[in-house]
């Protein structure tokens, strides 16, 4: 059977992708950030999962405002890279896993998670920056990817608890698939940040560190953080952290932290990263 072996939480700040694409990772501003991901790249190379479910949000690229799905699962064979306004990132096309995605959709809908099925869509920095951080710059991504796009752009995003429960249903879906596959799940976005209005630049390091701690110590508490608390305490865009709870839910009750990294800033963001292994 397929098994979710690990979860990866990471910010997906577009400036991190731009630093990789423009060869700036050795500049003093970026050195501490990319150094923080070196152990993760090594871990990923050694772990070499077959499939990555990447929970991310689209930033008005695949989805304009005609249709705003709360949860959308990418079921296509491949996903082209979006031009977000400055040209598409020079990264490989993302290859999907339509067979497993189709199975997940059926399992999830029957489990009462009525998600949107997307057969064709472009993917943006929300999905590709985490891949760059964990895989570097390969000519082809060495993993097949199932994108799960979550609406966090138009308020309200799904609640933390809804995301956590969806994660549990994803575990059940994956583990009822016949192939022996080693699957990892990414929860991306966050941590504290606000990129709008006179309050832009807000960072709340204690909030972020408590969130990282809670992923192993008390994920149920994290799942109860109300939307207003994210907005007020950690910035309007920190609501992206609900996506980490999908990842956490998919790991089962016990998860072991094997690596953590935190750094302020990348552009306007408190960058957090964690690797959790499922029991």
């Amino acid at each position, binding site marked *: 059977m397929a098994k979710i072996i690990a979860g990866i939480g990471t910010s997906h700040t577009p400036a991190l992708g731009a630093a990789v694409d423009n060869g700036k990772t050795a500049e003093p501003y970026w050195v501490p950030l990319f150094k923080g991901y070196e152990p993760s790249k090594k871990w990923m190379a050694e772990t070499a999962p077959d499939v990555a479910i990447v929970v991310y949000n689209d930033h008005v690229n695949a989805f304009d405002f005609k249709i705003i799905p709360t949860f959308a699962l990418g079921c296509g064979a491949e996903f082209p890279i979006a031009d977000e306004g400055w040209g598409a990132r020079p990264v490989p096309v993302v290859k999907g896993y339509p067979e497993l995605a189709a199975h997940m959709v059926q399992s999830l809908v029957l489990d009462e998670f009525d998600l949107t099925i997307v057969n064709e869509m472009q993917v943006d920095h929300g999905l590709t920056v985490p891949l760059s951080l964990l895989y570097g710059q390969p000519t082809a991504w060495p993993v097949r990817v199932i994108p799960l796009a979550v609406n966090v752009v138009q308020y309200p995003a799904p609640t933390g608890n809804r995301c956590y429960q969806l994660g549990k249903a994803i575990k059940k879906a994956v583990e009822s698939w016949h192939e022996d596959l080693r699957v990892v799940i990414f929860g991306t976005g966050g941590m504290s940040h606000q990129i709008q209005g006179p309050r832009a630049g807000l960072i709340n390091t204690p909030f972020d560190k408590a969130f990282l701690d809670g992923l192993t110590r008390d994920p149920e508490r994290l799942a109860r953080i109300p939307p207003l608390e994210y907005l007020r305490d950690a910035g309007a865009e920190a609501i992206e952290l609900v996506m980490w709870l999908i990842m956490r839910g998919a790991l089962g009750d016990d998860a072991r932290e094997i690596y953590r990294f935190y750094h302020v800033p990348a552009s*306007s963001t408190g960058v957090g990263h964690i690797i959790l292994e499922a029991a």
Partner: protein
Amino acid sequence: MSKKPEEFEDVPEYDDIPGTWVFDAQRARKGYHLNAFFYSLMKAENRAEFLADEPKYLEKFPITDAQRDAVLKRDWNALLELGGVSYAIVKLAFTDKKSYQHMASKMAGVTESDYVKMMLAGGRSPDGWRSKSERKA
């Protein structure tokens, strides 16, 4: 018995967060065509056409006069207030060959270098910025 107007809970709690326009369904409704304009800037040919004659390009979108003026003036906070969402608005900054950080510094009302310094020093503390009453105190 019907409710009196003041008994309806239609003023959202997050309106109390200072310096922030939460992009909720009502704001999204008002900003629908404005955001469609930003979305159009994902195509290189549209970016070129817009930059060649901004007012003419904007005629394609049924936006309000206030929204049009805010685009032409790059009045970033007005764009938020009038229904733009930052992820879409930033496509206008990218079209101008500017960064997210540039746009954020303008919204915050500081120079880009001061903004970068603030971020390098750990960012803006939430203390004093959690609510409008706390902001005034």
